[in-house]
């Protein structure tokens, strides 16, 4: 067997390799979410602070575009690999059980990963349409945020989406540590807590923004 040639292809086409792709791209999203949330929390500092943050962000120019392309690539890889894994896992049990009960290992997060992932994709499409590809010439970004969240239907959709995101991260973050092989017996409970804490931080961090906006308007 030629383990030395095409080693990289072999790695990526293996089960563990595909999990690794999910883990690394997922980690990329986690890092992105931290910076995205850090920026958004400036909304709490008010109109001027948030607008000037947005301005400074856009002075990054080509760097920003590079980051956007990077995120798009991460998304494409994460989604296509995830979809393929979902298909493979579905095929791995052609005859299903007539009766199947959970043994207590699964969590809401772990058992819904493909579905929460799909819902997040839908959210991202709406999110980009509303905040990224929106007409920005005559309004500041702060105004856009205020106007978008003045629609209660959208606000509810946004908050529910953040619950979905948090559910996805709750399993995803811990899972990536396990997949990367960083996990060990002593650290596992700690990693579980860190993962849940991180998911809560992201969920509440983003989810609280429309609540705040609604309260001040």
């Amino acid at each position: 067997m030629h383990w030395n040639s095409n080693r990289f292809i072999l790695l990526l086409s293996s089960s563990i390799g595909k999990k690794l792709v999910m883990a690394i791209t997922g980690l990329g999203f986690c890092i992105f979410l931290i910076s995205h949330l850090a920026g958004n929390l400036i909304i709490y500092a008010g109109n001027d602070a948030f607008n000037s943050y947005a301005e400074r962000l856009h002075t990054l120019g080509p760097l920003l575009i590079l980051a956007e392309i990077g995120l798009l690539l991460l998304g494409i890889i994460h989604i296509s690999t995830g979809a393929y894994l979902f298909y493979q896992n579905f095929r791995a049990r052609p005859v299903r059980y007539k009766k199947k009960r959970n043994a207590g290992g699964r969590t809401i997060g772990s058992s819904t990963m493909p579905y929460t992932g799909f819902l997040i994709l839908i959210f991202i499409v709406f999110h980009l349409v509303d905040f990224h590809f929106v007409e920005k010439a005559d309004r500041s970004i702060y105004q856009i945020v205020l106007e978008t969240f003045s629609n209660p239907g959208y606000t509810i959709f946004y908050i529910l989406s953040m619950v979905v995101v948090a559910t996805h991260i709750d399993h995803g973050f811990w899972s990536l540590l396990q997949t990367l092989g960083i996990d060990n017996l002593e650290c596992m409970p700690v990693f579980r807590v860190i993962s849940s804490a991180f998911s809560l931080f992201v969920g509440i961090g983003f989810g609280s923004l429309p609540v705040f906006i609604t309260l001040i308007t």
Partner: protein
Amino acid sequence: MKQASGEKCINLKLKVWRQKAEESNGRLESFKAENISKDMSFLEMLDVVNEEIILSGKDPIALDHDCREGICGSCGAMVNGRAHGPEKGTTLCQLHMRHFSNGDTVVIEPWRSRAFKVVKDLVVDRSAFDKIIQAGGYISVNTGGAPDGNAIPVPQEVAEKAMDAAECIGCGACAAACPNASAMLFTGAKISQFALLPQGHPEAKKRALAMVGEMDKQGFGNCTNEKECEAECPKGISIINIARMNREFLKSSILS
């Protein structure tokens, strides 16, 4: 032998998966299990049912078993949707009827996975596991005189972890219980028991690549860290062995 009725006995309604051969269609068939002593094991209960089936001139329920003391890994079935039944840390042969109540309906199905074909009724072909072992689940040693007992020092805690992994009896409950029908707990345990010990190091690289490659080839699913395997494993093998397998596989793939 008829069991004395009374408080120590229960009556059950069984729904057992019956399938003549791999290619034939299967279905759940109902049986009555009457006067079952609570001290019986699940397999002994099935023996009683089978005796009656044989007396009525029909084909008894086929099932795998050997040691009946929870160490060989031959037995196993889904009982009411749980691998080896509802109790933690037991094989089917060590599951006792005292965990059931009079009048219960018990659904019994074979392990389900693309890699485990049903041979007959509850018997599945688990040679996919053997193939994974053949791919690298061994160490090569030179023949000759037996080495001194303590010639290779192994720290106690490392030996313990290796022994924990080596507890795997290869019953298949992990893959059967896994929502993705993945065999990563089995393969992880088998890779770990060697990865932890110095005797396993010379072939470590080849082993991880070969065993994971074979596992994929057999058609098992991909682990999504659901932890159902660990919860159903009769030996309580930890998914930490999967993390170790990932590590070993990465090391072998990236560092040549």
